[in-house]
C-alpha cells in the first residue's frame, strides 16, 4: 500500500490521506488488538418505537448538548447562551444551539403587531408589516454571527482553564433568509445626505447601533428565516438586521426601526461597551468587522484522547472580510505546520469546517490552527494581538469581557494521559 508520509511534526498526516484510500489507511493504522463483542438484538430492535412528534428534538441521550447560560435566573443584566462547538460538526449551528445574547431578556413579540419603520433621510418614510415583507423577493445566505466579545478570555494574562464553549461559544453559523435592505431602500428612496443607518430593536432596552449606509446597501438584509424556519426569539423574532461578517451586537434583533442619518448615533453600545481600550489609553471605536479566525473544536478541553492512535483534528474557520482560503494546523506548538482540508462548501463570511488526520504517538502535543482569507488577511498569533492591543491587568472571570475582538490563535496542550488543557504557546 501507499505510504503516508507525515505532513508536519508530531504525527500530522497529509490532509488528502483519506481521499486517496481510506480503507487502506485505516487498516494500516489500526492494530485490531481488541477482540470484538458478540452482537445481540437490543430491546429497541424487538418492539415498535416511540410516537413521531410534531416538532422533532434530539435524542434523550444528547441532553449534554446544550448552550451554557451566564445568567440562568434572569438577574437584571445581560444573558448569554454559548454554543457547544466541541459537540457539533459541519458548518451549520442548529437553531436551538445558536449563541444568543439578550440585554434584557427575549422580547415576546406578536408578529401581527410588529412593525418595521424606515425613515429619516429618505424620500418617502415607510412602515412594513411582517406579512408585507414576506411578499418581497428574498435571498438566502450562510453567514456566521459572532459577538464582538467572543474569545475575550484570551486577553487574560494567564490561560483560563475553560472549554471551547466557554472561550469561543459566542459564535455560530446559520443560513439566513430575508429581504435585502437595498430592495426596501429602493422604495423609500435615499436622501443624498444620508451616510449612516441607525437601527433599533423593539426589545425593552430598544437596543440601537449605527451602521454605515455603504454596508446596508452592500449585503445587509432584514432576516425573517434562520435555517429554514422563522428566526428564533433569541435571534430577534420576527425579524433581525443581518450584517454578514460584522460585530454581532450590530445585527439588531427584534428590528423595528431604521433611521437614515448624516452622522452616527453614538449609541450606548458604540460609545461605551464596544469600544476597545488600547495601551496608550485611547480606544478603538466602530470595530465593525469580525476578523479572520479559527479554533480547533475536536480534540479540545474536556474531550480526552483515549490512548495513542488515529484522531481527526477538526475545527471552524471564518472571516468577516470574505472566504477562507487556507487553514494550517500544528501539533507541536507552532514549530511545524500542515495544511488542513477545507470541507465544501467554502462560503464568504461563513463557518468553514477544516479537518486533518493525526496519528497521536501518546506524547505531549500542542494543537493550533491558523486561518487565511481571500482578502489577504492572516489570523494573528496571540503574542501579536497582545503586543498591539495589550493584556488584561488581572485574570478575568471566565465569562468576563476584559476587551473584545480577539481573533488570535488558540492552543490546546495534550499530556501523556490524553487530557487537554488551554495554554499560551
Amino acid at each position, binding site marked *: 500500500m501507499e505510504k503516508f508520509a507525515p505532513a508536519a511534526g508530531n504525527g500530522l498526516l497529509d490532509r488528502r490521506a483519506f481521499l486517496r484510500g481510506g480503507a487502506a489507511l485505516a487498516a494500516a493504522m489500526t492494530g485490531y488488538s481488541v477482540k470484538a463483542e458478540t452482537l445481540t438484538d437490543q430491546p429497541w430492535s424487538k418492539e415498535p418505537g416511540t410516537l413521531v412528534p410534531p416538532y422533532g428534538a434530539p435524542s434523550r441521550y444528547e441532553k449534554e448538548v446544550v448552550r451554557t447560560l451566564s445568567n440562568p435566573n434572569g438577574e437584571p443584566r445581560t444573558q448569554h447562551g454559548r454554543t457547544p462547538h466541541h459537540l457539533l460538526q459541519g458548518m451549520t449551528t442548529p437553531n436551538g444551539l445558536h449563541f444568543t445574547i439578550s440585554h434584557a431578556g427575549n422580547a415576546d413579540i406578536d408578529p401581527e403587531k410588529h412593525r418595521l419603520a424606515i425613515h429619516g433621510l429618505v424620500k418617502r418614510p415607510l412602515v412594513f408589516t411582517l406579512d408585507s415583507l414576506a411578499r418581497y423577493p428574498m435571498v438566502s445566505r450562510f453567514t456566521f454571527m459572532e459577538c464582538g466579545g467572543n474569545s475575550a478570555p484570551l486577553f487574560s494574562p494567564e490561560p483560563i482553564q475553560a472549554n471551547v464553549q466557554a472561550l469561543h461559544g459566542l459564535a455560530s453559523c446559520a443560513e439566513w433568509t430575508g429581504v435585502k435592505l437595498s430592495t426596501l431602500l429602493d422604495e423609500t428612496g435615499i436622501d443624498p445626505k444620508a451616510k449612516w443607518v441607525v437601527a433599533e430593536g423593539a426589545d425593552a432596552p430598544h437596543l440601537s447601533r449605527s451602521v454605515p449606509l455603504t454596508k446596508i446597501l452592500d449585503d445587509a438584509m432584514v432576516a425573517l428565516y434562520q435555517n429554514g424556519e422563522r428566526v428564533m426569539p433569541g435571534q430577534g423574532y420576527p425579524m433581525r438586521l443581518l450584517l454578514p461578517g460584522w460585530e454581532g451586537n450590530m445585527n439588531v434583533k427584534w428590528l423595528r426601526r431604521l433611521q437614515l*442619518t448624516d452622522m452616527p448615533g453614538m449609541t450606548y453600545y458604540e460609545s461605551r461597551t464596544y469600544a476597545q481600550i488600547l495601551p496608550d489609553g485611547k480606544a478603538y*471605536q466602530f470595530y465593525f468587522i469580525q476578523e479572520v479566525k479559527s479554533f480547533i473544536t475536536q480534540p479540545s478541553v474536556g474531550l480526552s484522547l483515549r490512548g495513542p492512535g488515529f484522531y481527526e483534528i477538526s475545527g471552524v474557520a471564518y472571516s468577516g472580510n470574505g472566504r477562507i482560503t487556507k487553514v494550517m494546523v500544528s501539533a507541536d506548538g507552532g514549530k511545524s505546520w500542515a495544511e488542513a482540508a477545507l470541507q465544501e462548501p467554502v462560503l464568504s463570511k461563513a463557518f468553514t469546517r477544516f479537518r486533518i488526520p493525526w496519528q497521536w504517538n501518546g506524547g505531549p502535543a500542542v494543537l493550533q490552527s491558523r486561518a487565511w482569507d481571500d482578502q489577504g488577511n492572516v489570523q494573528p498569533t496571540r503574542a501579536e494581538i497582545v503586543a498591539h492591543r495589550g493584556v488584561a491587568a488581572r485574570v*478575568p472571570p471566565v465569562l468576563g469581557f476584559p476587551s473584545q475582538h480577539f481573533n488570535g490563535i488558540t492552543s490546546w496542550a495534550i499530556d501523556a494521559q490524553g487530557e487537554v488543557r488551554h495554554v499560551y504557546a
Partner: protein
Amino acid sequence: MSMPRLLALLVVCTPAFGAGPNLGTPISPAELAAWNIFVLPDGTGLPRGSGTFAQGAPIFAQKCALCHGDQGKGGISAALVGSPPIKSLDATKTIANFWPYSTTIFDFIRRSMPWQQPRSLTDEEVYALTAYLLALNKIIGEQDVMNAQTLPKVKMPNRNGFIPRFPDKMPPGPERDL
C-alpha cells in the same frame, strides 16, 4: 416627444416608487413620533423640556439607586460616578472617563432605563437625571439647566479619546460640527 410618452418614460424611470412590490405604507412624522427617540450627538432629536441636578436627585433615589447605588456609587449595576484612570484594556469605563458625547446619556436613559420599566420616564425626568449624572461627575455645575440647547454643548472629558478601527469603512464626517 408627446406628453403621454414622456409621462410613461418618467414612470418607468422612477425606480424608487415604481419597480418593486411597493407593499410599505407611507408614514407621517406624527405617526412615528412615539418611536422617534434617537438623539444624535449634535442634539438632533432632543425633545422640549429641561431638568437640573436638584430635580434629578429625588428621581435617581427613587428609580435608579436600587441598582446603581446611593448617588450612583454602584450596586448590583455599574457605578455612574467617578473617573478611575484608564491604565489597562480592562479598565472600568465610566461616563466621566470614557463616554464621548453627553447626548448618549439622555438617549440611553430614555430608551433603556429603568431596567424593569423602560420608556416610563417623562422627557423632563430624563433631562433631570442627565443633569444629575453630569453634575455628580463635575462635568457641569449643580445649577446648570440641561435642555435641547445646552446638553449637546457639554464637552465630555474623553471626547477626543477614540480612533476608528477601520477608517476606510467610515462614512465621511457630517457637514456640520459636532
